């Protein structure tokens, strides 16, 4: 029987029926304290600290606070210090505040070369699907499961169904991976991928960079998918080469990794075809990522109570052109779009221009390394000269567990992944877009069609 990429990875990790082995466990401060406490109470240890790595990201202030004990918010400080104490006690390697490797957990895994093809990767965070971009099976888990993985290096899992989304044709100029995944979720709905491990395939995907692929896999969870994955190829192998965790014998690894693809004739439970040439820059108008239209369209007529409610929350009227929506805030960052390529694309848009007087705009690199690399290229100067606030690495305003939040009623163009009510701050109104679209919106103070504007 021809097998899918998902089946190959799943079957290689079955310890016994319903129990799968985990190759890499990523840990952060928010979803781990109760898990470590559980280990202590039961007098258990971390089975494989050498397959575990931790960082602080959700609570981290992005003002350059150099060490955990200097975090102003008492509860945030306590949570990060608890992570530091737990990692010390259980021998888990940690990149906390002040480390040159600190950053958003889904940025640092790939950056260190830890996320590799064929692996199973979990983290107590729904956006763990990001790592599937490397041809890994990667998904988010809850805190009880974090504890289970810490104690056993395995996870009790029901096998998900398999879905393939095949993209044909090239994306148009200035249309990005973010637009591709937003358009896909808009079509399938926020529960459209539920219960499935999703493989993104086709010529469009093959032509994308690793950063682009990570953006797509990252948002799989917004379509309800268990995991998103892309078969590894030369683009993947080139990314891993030379990174700290790259295999000592890369050629041998690559030879194995080349086997990791879906064989012709393998069957999926669900198949979807998408013509990538028809995708435009996308802007969400509502309070979930599936409520999205093309930038050339208008706010739609509500079809049900859910949409009516979303429009009320967003303070939008049906029929208003998207390009007439004015913004007060712009946020470029998050595990979806905070890598160097994202920042380069945004910087190219704002270079030599000025942020609109009505807009407060910020750029938050995904990791300390991304920040250093961007600064070496002078991107920070481009952003600062345009009037952007250039911050330090963290989850920042993607979820506002740190000081970066929207005020009541503020409207924000955001490169993050969730436009849920209150996600970026109580009463805040979030529109999800690509880094280029966010950058252009910062300059104009409203949304523009980046294709015409350039």
């Amino acid at each position, binding site marked *: 029987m021809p097998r899918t990429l998902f089946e190959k990875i799943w079957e290689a990790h079955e310890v016994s029926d319903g129990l799968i082995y985990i190759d890499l466990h990523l840990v952060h401060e928010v979803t781990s304290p109760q898990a470590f406490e559980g280990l202590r109470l039961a007098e258990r240890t971390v089975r494989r600290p050498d397959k575990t790595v931790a960082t602080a990201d959700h609570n981290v202030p992005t003002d350059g606070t150099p060490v955990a004990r200097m975090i102003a918010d008492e509860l945030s400080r*306590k949570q990060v210090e608890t992570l530091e104490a737990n990692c010390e006690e259980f021998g888990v390697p940690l990149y906390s505040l002040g480390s040159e490797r600190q950053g958003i957990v889904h940025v640092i895994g790939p950056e260190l070369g830890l996320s590799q093809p*064929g692996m199973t990767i979990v983290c107590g965070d729904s956006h763990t699907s990001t790592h599937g971009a490397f041809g890994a099976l990667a998904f988010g888990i809850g805190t009880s499961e974090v504890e289970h993985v810490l104690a*056993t290096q395995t996870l009790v899992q029901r096998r998900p169904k398999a879905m393939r989304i095949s993209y044909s044709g090239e994306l148009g100029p200035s249309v990005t991976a973010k637009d591709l995944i937003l358009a896909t979720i808009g079509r399938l709905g926020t*529960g459209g991928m539920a219960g499935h491990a999703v493989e993104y395939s086709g010529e469009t995907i093959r032509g994308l960079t690793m950063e682009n692929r990570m953006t797509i896999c990252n948002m799989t969870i917004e379509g309800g998918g268990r995991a998103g994955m892309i078969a590894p190829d030369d683009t993947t192998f080139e990314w891993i080469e030379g990174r700290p965790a790259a295999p000592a014998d890369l050629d041998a690894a690559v030879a194995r990794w080349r086997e990791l693809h879906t064989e012709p004739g393998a069957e999926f439970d669900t198949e979807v075809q998408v013509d990538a040439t028809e995708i435009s820059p996308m802007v969400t108008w509502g309070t979930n990522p599936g409520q999205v239209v093309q930038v050339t369209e208008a706010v739609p007529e509500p079809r049900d109570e*859910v949409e009516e409610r979303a429009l009320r929350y967003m303070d939008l009227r049906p029929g208003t052109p998207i390009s007439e929506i004015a913004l007060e805030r712009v946020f470029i960052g998050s595990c979806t779009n905070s890598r160097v390529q994202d920042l380069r694309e945004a910087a190219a848009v704002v270079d030599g221009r000025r942020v609109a007087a009505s807009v407060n705009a910020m750029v938050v690199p995904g990791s300390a390394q991304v920040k250093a690399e961007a600064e070496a290229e002078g991107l920070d100067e481009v952003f600062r000269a345009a009037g952007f606030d250039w911050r330090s690495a963290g989850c920042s305003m993607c979820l506002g567990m740190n000081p970066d939040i929207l005020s009541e009623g503020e409207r924000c163009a955001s490169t993050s992944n969730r436009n849920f009510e209150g996600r970026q701050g109580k009463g805040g109104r979030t529109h999800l877009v690509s880094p280029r679209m966010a950058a252009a919106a910062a300059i104009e103070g409203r949304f523009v069609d980046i294709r015409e504007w350039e």
Partner: protein
Amino acid sequence: MGVVEPLDVIEGEVAVLDRADVDTDQIIPKQFLKRIERTGFGEFLFYDWIRDGEVELEARPILVAGPNFGSGSSREHAVWALQQFGFEAVIAPSFSDIFYSNCTKNGFLPVIVDQETCRAIATAGAARIDVDDQTVTYADGVVRFEIDEETKHRMLNGLDDIAITLSNAEAIDAYETVRADNGPVTTSLS
């Protein structure tokens, strides 16, 4: 793991939240995720919605909700909040995968029945859920629900997942021994 209570029958009045796509950011907003304990979340359940008068909820044994309940963030705090508020089970047409799994790890029963039945149960105002029989009984009738056999067994008996897995530690040892490709080592990065 916290102590997981065995489940058998859950019976009583229902509270209703008839909305689709209720995400875990609404169930327990981000500002309450900074606690390092498993307790103290009940009073913050649906914090913004309740404070703004958007929804009214009373602590009853059963919550009836809309489709795609618990979408978004993987935060298990959402389950802890529902439980600590006073709910013992949630009935909905569908759940997000991670939320469903989190429920089962905490002895909090997620029950999937179609939307029409959900509304009928809401109208009935009370229900009786029998975990072993996999049935929900309410004014107008009885409906059967699906639950994975192993998950049911563990919930019925309040079993500790980790203890079960560790009782089979030789299988994990054996897997680690024979697996050729061992993956990167986090403790020795250059």
